[in-house]
Structure formats: structure tokens, C-alpha cells
């Protein structure tokens, strides 16, 4: 089952006492070809899990860099079919790196839930994060996704209190994504001490690996979080590499070199800790 790729990934890293590096990039940005090249290059650069953003016109939980990336991808003719095609092409060369689709519900709803899950599973998708589908609407997509062998990864946030957390976790699988700050993607950097406390609280409720994201941009920040989290997610900083580059090729190279830097930091986080 394709979903086990995520479980295998975390298991392997646990044995090495390492956190996972999760990288987010927007599908179709800056264009299909370069986006696919980035996708293919990420594992070698050190990404353990890839989150692939499905562009949407109204990404209401995203900050400006990801909004603009989505707009550019859509303007270039990107759509849900092409996102799944990217995953298929990626899988021709890579059978081990988990891919998690991240996006909003409407494009999936319009594609048709059943058709989407069939096509996603066939393409080699391992999990999905749908930002605007809370557990109250699990019947819509979460439960069918799990039945189709695709992990449904849920976000927990600082506002998810102890009373609510069990409900959030009930159908969550693969890993839990802890949004370290209230706000949109790419906003303020989290305070590591605070996040560490929050993770301890969350771990009382679940054995799932917990990834931490939102606001982590640099290798030192990633390293600090990787000391205690099961995974560190970096998105906006990578997307900005593409936005700031003079050419598409340079954007691709910059994404991959930042990934490399982040990967080293995440890999060495606990070693550094042990030494110091």
C-alpha cells in the first residue's frame, strides 16, 4: 500500500535518531517543467517527505509567497490533473519518497472526491492535507481517503485545546502537522521552547509522529525544532527562492541548495545537541 511509505520513512529516521525534513513546493510553479525538476531533485537534496501544494485561487490560510505562487501556476494553465501527472512522473524515478498533497477542498470537490482519490492513489500520492476540512466534516473526504489507502494528515494549532485534540486525532494518520503559530504560512518564526512544550502536551494524546511547520525559514531554526520534533516543515522560504531568482533554472537550483542546507541542519540537530 502506498501509504506505508510515510510510515517507513519515519521508522527509518527514528532508527537513526533523526527528524524528517518536509519540504513544501507549489505544483506548477514557476512552470510545469521546472516544478517537476524541483520535485525530482528534492529527495537527493535531502527532503525526506515532499508536500506538493495544489494551487487554488483563494488560499485563505496562506501568506503572500504561496498565494503568488498559486496564482502564477494557475495563470500558466496548471490544474489538478497536471498536479497528479507530476506525481506520476516523479514516481517513475522515485518509489520511496512520500508525497503529501496539500491544498483546499474546492478543487478536489469539483474534480469529484471518488475520482480524485482513485487517481491520486494510482499516481503514487501517500497522504493529503486539506486545510479547510476540519474533523467535523470527516465523512466528506477524510474517511474515504483512508479507505483508498491515502493518509489524511490533520493540522493541530495553538488553538486546538486538550478538549478538542482527541477529535482532531481520531481519523488522522501518517503524521500530525503542528502549526506552530496562529497565522498564515510563512509568518512569524515559532519560539522553540513554546513549541517543545506544546509537543509534549500533544504527545500525551498520540503516538503519531508530529511535524512542526509555519514560519520556519532557516537552517538554524530548522535545527532547533528538529531536536525535539519528528519532522520540520519548510515551505514559504523555498517558494521565495523561486520568486527571487532571475531565471527559472536559478530558482530550481536555489530551492535545491536551500533544501540541502536545511537537510544538513536537521540531520545534525540531535548530534549537535548530544555533543553540547
Amino acid at each position, binding site marked *: 500500500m502506498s501509504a506505508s511509505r510515510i510510515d517507513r520513512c519515519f521508522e527509518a529516521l527514528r532508527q537513526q535518531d533523526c527528524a524528517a525534513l518536509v519540504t513544501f513546493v507549489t505544483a506548477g510553479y514557476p512552470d510545469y517543467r521546472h516544478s517537476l525538476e524541483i520535485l525530482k531533485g528534492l529527495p537527493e537534496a535531502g527532503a525526506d517527505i515532499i508536500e506538493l501544494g495544489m494551487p*487554488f*485561487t*483563494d*488560499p*485563505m*490560510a*496562506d*501568506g*503572500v509567497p504561496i*498565494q503568488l505562487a498559486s*496564482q502564477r501556476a*494557475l495563470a500558466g494553465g496548471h*490544474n*489538478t*490533473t497536471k498536479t497528479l501527472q507530476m506525481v506520476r512522473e516523479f514516481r517513475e524515478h522515485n518509489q520511496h519518497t512520500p508525497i503529501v498533497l496539500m491544498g*483546499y*477542498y*474546492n*478543487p*478536489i*470537490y*469539483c*474534480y469529484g472526491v471518488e475520482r480524485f482519490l482513485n487517481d491520486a492513489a494510482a499516481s503514487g500520492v501517500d497522504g493529503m492535507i486539506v*486545510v*479547510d*476540512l*476540519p474533523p*467535523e*466534516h470527516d465523512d466528506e473526504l477524510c474517511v474515504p481517503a483512508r479507505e483508498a489507502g491515502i493518509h489524511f494528515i*490533520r*493540522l*493541530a*494549532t*495553538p*488553538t*486546538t*485545546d486538550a478538549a*478538542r485534540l482527541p477529535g*482532531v486525532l481520531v481519523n488522522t494518520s501518517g503524521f500530525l502537522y503542528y*502549526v506552530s503559530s*496562529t*497565522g*498564515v504560512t510563512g*509568518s512569524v518564526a515559532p519560539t522553540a521552547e513554546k513549541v517543545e512544550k506544546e509537543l509534549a502536551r500533544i504527545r500525551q494524546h498520540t503516538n503519531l509522529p508530529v511535524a512542526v511547520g509555519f514560519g520556519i525559514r532557516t537552517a538554524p531554526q530548522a535545527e532547533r525544532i528538529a531536536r525535539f520534533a519528528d519532522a520540520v516543515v519548510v515551505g514559504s522560504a523555498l517558494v521565495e527562492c523561486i520568486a527571487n531568482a532571475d531565471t527559472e533554472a536559478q530558482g530550481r537550483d536555489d530551492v535545491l541548495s536551500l533544501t540541502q542546507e536545511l537537510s544538513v541542519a536537521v540531520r545534525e540537530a540531535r548530534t549537535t545537541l548530544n555533543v553540547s
Partner: protein
Amino acid sequence: MSTATTLRKGPDINGFFGHFGGRFVAETLMPLVLELQEEYARARNSKEFVDEMDALRRDFVGRKSPLYLAERLTEQLGGAKVYLKREDLLHTGAHKINNCLGQILLAKRMGKTRIIAETGAGMHGVATATVAARFGMECVVYMGSVDIHRQQPNVQRMRLLGAKVIPVTSGAGTLKDAMNDALRDWVTNVADTFYIIGTVAGPHPYPAMVRDFQSIIGEETREQIIEREGRLPDTLVACVGGGSNALGLFHPFLDDKSVAMVGVEAAGEGLDKRHAASLKGGTPGILHGNRTFLLQSADGQIQDAHSISAGLDYPGIGPEHAWLNEIGRVSYAAITDDEALEAFHTLCRIEGIIPALETAHAIAYVMKVAPTLPEDHLIVINLSGRGDKDMSTVLAAMDASAENAEKNAGKAVKGEA
């Protein structure tokens, strides 16, 4: 015990009207939305809340609004008898104040100190800025940059009332984009911020809550028409963008089978061109926290709406409207920019009332159908707002039309020569 069924009970516990509605928001907002739902349920049953609301409606807002028999319009149309529910006479000039008042009282109960809102034509922004000033709260209003340009008087009013107006340049720079940015602000500032949504849309409980606050329109209309005519109206007509003024008028009559209801959407340049008619030209989807009819591509990407009225150019509609349309209880029509402009001028000239361009859509529909109806047919149009804010849009349209007429006249002269 009555076994009568009612169309007024919805939504269900998860916020659904049929399969429309719901609570499709990011996890960060869910606890807040649930807290609001609980607080609203408590407030509705609180005598203190109801009394405070009643007093403010009377003394601050200026309710009841009159139900006015439009004699000259009726005479000109030569058919049904046309009444206007004068929400334009309320403080701030539109029905929007009804809802803002209710929501700010809830914000106060919940201990929130900062108010955010989105606005298209600016009427909701003005109403929000007004209640925020009245209750001494910080107020931030998100408004599309395009709308800021075409609704300057309302931008100035908001600023005078102490609100900060933030231009939104993402997307098309109109209402939908302003709502996205307001949601982003809310996600960021959940602890102290209350989001006053301006229409019967958004995550549950907003569609039901806004409807309830606006239902005072229909409740008063019911009493007033019975007092005047000794019976219920035959047809209710209101314009629909998100649809709050329409639901406010319709809802208290939903179980009265004899009362027909028509919501009028903006057909813009025509339903085969750029428009804002989500029911007439859209498909079901999920946006801004609810499932409803949306203008969108086959791939589920939201399309920009167009209407001459900034208040109507939203690519969605409240979920209860989507349901009422599906079950056939309310019918929906669409009126073009040109038809709305003509109705605008008609009401100005023959009734001495300058209506909002939004409302002009409802008037245009009535101008079409009233002549075909008998004289004892009673129509009530919700005159949802006044048109001061639309002056520059209307004057620009008049200039463009005069220019075209001149050009055409020139061509005709050349042709003759």
C-alpha cells in the same frame, strides 16, 4: 402539538441547509467558530441581549423602517401595487447596520476588543466602523483596491469613524479577495479579534446568525402590510449578492405558501458574459467556509464576478439561498447592469428616492413583471440601501452613454451625407 413542517428551522447542527453550508475553515479558526456558535445560542435566549438590541435598534439605528407605498411607480407600471421597505432610511443608509449591531454585541459578550470586516461597496464597512466606534473597539476593514477606487465616499466615512481601511490588491482586488485577507487576519489574531461577516455566508453559525439579525426586516414588513392591506403580500423581491437583505425580508414568510419570493442576482454584462449571478450561472463548491453555488472553472478555481454594483460582485451566495433555490421555495432572476441603471434613474425621478445600485436590480425586476400582474397584487421590494455611494459609478455610466450617443449621432449624420 403542531405537526406543521417549517422551512425556518435550518441549519442542522453542523450548519447545513440540505447539503449547503457547513464549517469549512482552517483548524485555527474552528475553536473560535464553535465558541461563537455557543455564545450566539446563549445570547438569543438572554433577555439582557434582546433588550439591549431592541433599544439600540430603536434609538441608534432608527427602526422601524417605513413600509412605503410607491404610488407613482405603481401608477407608471400600471399593474401590481408596489411597496418599498425603506431600509435606506436607517442610520448609515442600508440594512447592513442590523447585522453589525447584533454581531458587535456578541463581540462585547465574548470579550473581544478588535473588530475586522470585509467590504465590497463599503456599506458593510461603514456599518461595522459605526458600531465599532459606538462600542469603542479598534476596527480594521479589508476592501479591494478596485472597490476603494469606485466607492471613495464610503472609504472616507469609514476613516472618519476611526476605522483603518486596508486595500487588498491580491486577486481581482474586489470583495472575494477582501474576504480572503480578512480570514487571514482572523487566523493570525484569533485571541482578541471578532470577524463581523457582512452577509449570510461564511462558516456556520454566520449564515444563520446574520439571517436572524436581518429578519427584523421581514418581521416588520409582515406587521406593516397587514396593518395597511389587511393581508400578506403576494410577492417579495430583493436583490441578492451574498443575500443578507433578501433573506432578512424572506425568512419570516418562508412558511406562508401564498407568498412568492424572488431574489434578483446581478447579470452584469449578460449571463453569457461577465456577471455575478452565482445561482443562475454557477455550480456548487466550497469557498469562505461554506458550500454553496459559486462562479468557478471546471477545475474548481474561483472566477471573478462582475456587476456595476460593487456590493453584488461576489462569486458566491449564502448557502440558505442555494438550498431555497434547490427546493424551489424562492425563485431567482438576473438583471443586467443596463437594466439596473435604468431602474435607478426611474426611482430617482418618479419617487424622489436614490436607491443603491444593488437595490436597483430588484426594482428593475419589478418594473418588468409588475405591468403583467393585476392591480390587487401586492409586491414588496426591499429597498436595501441608498445610492449616495454609487454617484460616481452612475455619473460615469451617464457620461459614457452620452458619449456613445454623440458618436452614434455623428455616424448617422455622416451616413446621411
